[in-house]
């Protein structure tokens, strides 16, 4: 059964300032997928898979005494030109139960799984791989949604972990496909597999800037769908949170202050509807940050700090996150808003808190 699947390798747009400055006269005709120690090692360690897929590429039997040298030579020599329009790769598989080794592998596989998961036909093999891929995509998608609730630094870390986990799992899955058939286009498939481990290729357009060495990215129709689904999920989550807080005027105000919108509120006679509209704009245009703030258990306390800053009672030192008393710079509440929250929550500083509240309530005289 032929199960076609396409993916494209595209150029990352010119990224050096020199290239951008000279973009009208630079004639960059091609970029090359070259070799790297890590990516080559990843391919070579898939020993059995290479022995099944590479003999026709190398025109050499895998039992040849020169096999190991020639295999390494091939991967060390890789220098595949990719032109400006990108390159489409056929990475699908032809699952074929009539091949003797495939029947053997099916028997081995079935020994280790429940009756429900048994592979019986070529269709069931294709379904098995599709299902596994859908599962890992879902795991990734869920992890990204979860990460969106975290602060920027942790979110980036979690996204990175989810990204690595997804592609590690994908490679593990791809590594066993050869047991059940053969790629429709062996050369394209091997290049795809190589790219998954090559430092100059981002496996997902979202991570195109994760390293300055990235010159290419992989993109498929399936990925477009995946991105839309993920985007939709995040939007839904944001909408749910919006609806849950909108009836609580104080909570809306706190969220807006923490989102840095204090300047739109301070000194203005805004109605609940006005504030709800500002919040709606934020949840639609600044979704990730909105989710993170709305989920934050300390939003009330942080909102209080931000209100005091907006009113000029406290001061955030320029180009830092350090928060001090505006009237007395020696009173440092903390190096971050979290530390300032702890300061104000501390029983020892109750007098100071009352003083700030008193100053907050005092009308400003110009």
């Amino acid at each position, binding site marked *: 059964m032929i199960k076609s699947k396409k993916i494209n390798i595209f150029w990352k747009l*010119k990224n*050096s*300032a*020199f*290239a*951008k*400055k*000279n*973009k*009208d*006269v*630079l*004639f*960059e*005709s*091609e*970029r*090359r997928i*070259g*070799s*790297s*120690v*890590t*990516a*080559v090692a990843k391919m070579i360690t898939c020993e059995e898979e290479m022995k099944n897929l590479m003999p026709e590429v190398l025109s050499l039997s895998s039992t040849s005494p020169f096999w190991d*040298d020639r295999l*390494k*030579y091939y*991967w*060390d*020599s890789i*220098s595949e030109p990719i032109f*400006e*329009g*990108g390159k*489409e790769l056929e990475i699908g598989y032809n699952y074929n139960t009539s091949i003797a080794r495939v029947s053997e592998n099916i028997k081995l596989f079935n020994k280790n799984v429940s009756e429900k998961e048994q592979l019986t036909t070529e269709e069931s093999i294709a379904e098995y791989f599709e299902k596994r891929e859908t599962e890992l995509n879902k795991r990734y998608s869920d992890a990204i949604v979860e990460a969106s609730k975290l602060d920027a630094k942790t979110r980036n870390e979690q996204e990175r972990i989810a990204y690595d986990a997804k592609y590690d799992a994908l490679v593990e899955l791809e590594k066993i496909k050869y047991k059940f058939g053969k790629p429709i286009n062996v050369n394209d498939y091997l290049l795809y597999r190589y790219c998954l481990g090559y*430092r*100059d290729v981002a496996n997902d357009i979202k991570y195109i800037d994760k390293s300055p*060495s990235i010159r290419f990215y992989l993109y498929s129709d399936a990925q477009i769908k995946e991105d839309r689904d993920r985007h939709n999920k995040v939007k839904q989550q944001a909408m749910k949170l919006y609806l849950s807080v909108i009836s609580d005027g104080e909570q809306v105000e706190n969220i807006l202050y923490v989102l840095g919108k204090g300047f739109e509120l301070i000194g203005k006679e805004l109605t609940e509807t006005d504030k709800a509209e500002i919040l709606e704009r934020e949840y639609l245009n600044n979704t990730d940050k909105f989710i993170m703030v709305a989920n934050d258990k300390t939003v009330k306390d942080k909102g209080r700090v931000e209100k005091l800053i907006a009113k000029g009672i406290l001061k955030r030192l320029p180009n830092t996150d350090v928060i001090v008393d505006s009237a007395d710079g020696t009173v440092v509440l903390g190096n971050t808003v979290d530390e300032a929250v702890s300061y104000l929550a501390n029983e020892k500083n109750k007098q100071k808190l009352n003083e700030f509240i008193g100053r907050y309530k005092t009308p400003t005289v110009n």
Partner: protein
Amino acid sequence: MREIQPVTYNSTVYSDVNLLYSNSLIEPAQLTSKLTYFYGKDSDMFPLLFSTQGQGIINKVAPKALNDTQYEWPVMGRMKHTSAIVGLANSSNTKPGLAHGSFEAIFEDNWLIGQYGLTTPDKAHTLRIQGEAVQLGPKQYKYLLALSTADATEYVSLDNFVPGTNWVMTAPNVAMVLSDGNRSNSMAPGKWTNQYDIVRFSKQITGNIANKVTPIEFDLSDGTTTKLWMPFEMKLFEQDKRIMMEEKLWNGKYNRDEYGVIHLKDPVTQEPIPQGAGVKEILKSVGQYDTYSTLTLAKLDSMVNTIFANRIDSTPMELLLYTGSGGIEMFNNAIKNAASANSYYEKLGGEEIQGGKNGMLSYGKYFGQYKTISGYTITVKQAHIFDHGTYAEMDKKNGRVINSHPYESYDMVLLDHSMSNSGERNVQFVCEAGRENISGVYRGLTPLPASWGAFDRNGLSTRKDMASYEDMSTGGINILNPFTSYFLNFAA
């Protein structure tokens, strides 16, 4: 026994006698007065400075407007004859051109000209462009096309219409009589831009350091030796300055954005700080770049083929492959492995094993040149900056080392130093006329060392016991035609 320390570092602003004491250079007894360089001397470290500035290949740019260090040079590419297709105008047409019928196709630009011929990407069909383009939108130009065939069953197969695929224009065919003229495309030179850097180094001293003698004999750049401290310190100062300049020429990053704005500013004066692209960035920006893990002859050939694909004239090429010790080993191994694979054992063995002195055998001979199929010779040139420069030093400290060589040592840069068709050297050092290198002394009451040169030794600039040697240079690298050079980047 006292443990000898290899190097002591001092980052205090002023050099004074305390520096000598703190660095244990004033000691009662020494085993030898000759200085031992644990890591060798830093000569032969500056291949780019040497091959450009050192050979007088300097392009002095006249100063331009305030704070502008940009320079341009006109360039000419090769005439293009191709256009990328967007698709068929009528997507339901599955057999375009069948039965001698015309059909419409959309291209990304209007480079194609009416009356000219056109060949499909699979080279199986020739067509004629039956009129000029009609613009449908941005990057969409519609053309009327007709197959040039006698076969009524021929049509253009649909795989030729994959978006982005290039079709090529051929000679215009017209009728025997009543033909009309057409037009032609033209191409004008473009201009490339880069900019040079302005760098400053200072050496500040105080007290009587200028006249202090140490028990160690230092060798100087001119081959003489001295026991005076300052000439030696100035030698180190100059070497360090050159290492950093050389590193900039290789690794510099252009810092003006596409609108010409420099965002890096001096925090005190708010003046922009220009930095130019170095060799590696220039080559990477034009696609003269590949990565490698273990060098193979196939990879070397691929690099050479790319270079010759970009050059169609027969201008003699002087190709030098700059690399560190790691790269030299890779180069040698790549050729030896290829020779072994071709069973040239006897010849190789004969070269490698030779009679040495005193009845001893010597083993080892290494490849340093490669002759291409086109008859050009690539010569390997060891660039110590790749082994011992600042980037290499950082690699070592960060454990980015393979076979005792830093990753940087494996990078290979093939530079074409030939004369361009304009009679200039392809690789040039660029600086500002009048400010190539300026140095001066800011003088207080501190005695000045002779190595600071013949500056005014009478007037004072400050009442303090201090003096400062100030050095300012402008400089950058320019490759007139980067398409005949190449950067092979070692990728871990």
